């Protein structure tokens, strides 16, 4: 059986990629300053069942997938 933590690991990795991209853009916009990460807050969001909804059809009672999300709040400073 798959562990939910595996999905959360994937979600965390995706969030980090996004965060690194945004931080590198911020750093590039301020070349005379050094970007320092002050803190990272990690928050697991509740999983959601995904059920496909089609127009003019009753909603299926069978979830097609489950989706989990991780939110990272990165506090940084430009010094």
């Amino acid at each position: 059986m798959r562990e939910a933590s595996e999905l959360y690991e994937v979600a965390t990795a995706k969030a980090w990629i996004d965060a690194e991209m945004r931080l590198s853009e911020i750093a590039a916009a301020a070349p005379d300053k050094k970007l320092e990460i002050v803190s990272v807050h990690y928050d697991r969001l509740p999983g959601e069942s995904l059920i496909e909804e089609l127009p003019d059809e009753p909603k299926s009672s069978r979830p097609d997938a489950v989706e989990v999300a991780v939110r990272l709040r990165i506090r940084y400073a430009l010094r």
Partner: protein
Amino acid sequence: MKVLRILAFVAAGAVCAPAEDWVVDVTGKARGAPDVYYLLMKMEQQSARASDAALSGEKALMEFLAAVERLKVPGLTWRIANNIVSPGDRGPGMVYSRNIVFTMLAEPSAADRDRAFARLQDLGAKYNSHCVTCIGSG
């Protein structure tokens, strides 16, 4: 001398003052096939007195769960949650509610799982229990 000390303090503060912090919020998502399915059912019993509603509600719950046991659905587990007593919305009296969360692993085929949940819902209808959020997954 005192003025010099104050000037030195202010200058040091200007150099050492912490830079302003900024925040980046990002959300990462991951999707997978469900490996657990949930069925949330709610049982309600109404009576003139809350104690009577609770007694008959517990009795109906035990009878319902005994009937569920007799279905012998493989891999099915359940837990009971919430005791809610609230004023009846259909006339006078009190309503006693319990929630039952059924859990089933995704290992049986989808058809078997759907059949099992349909049987549970049919059985629930006989015991004044009904599906609330229907089927969720995890």
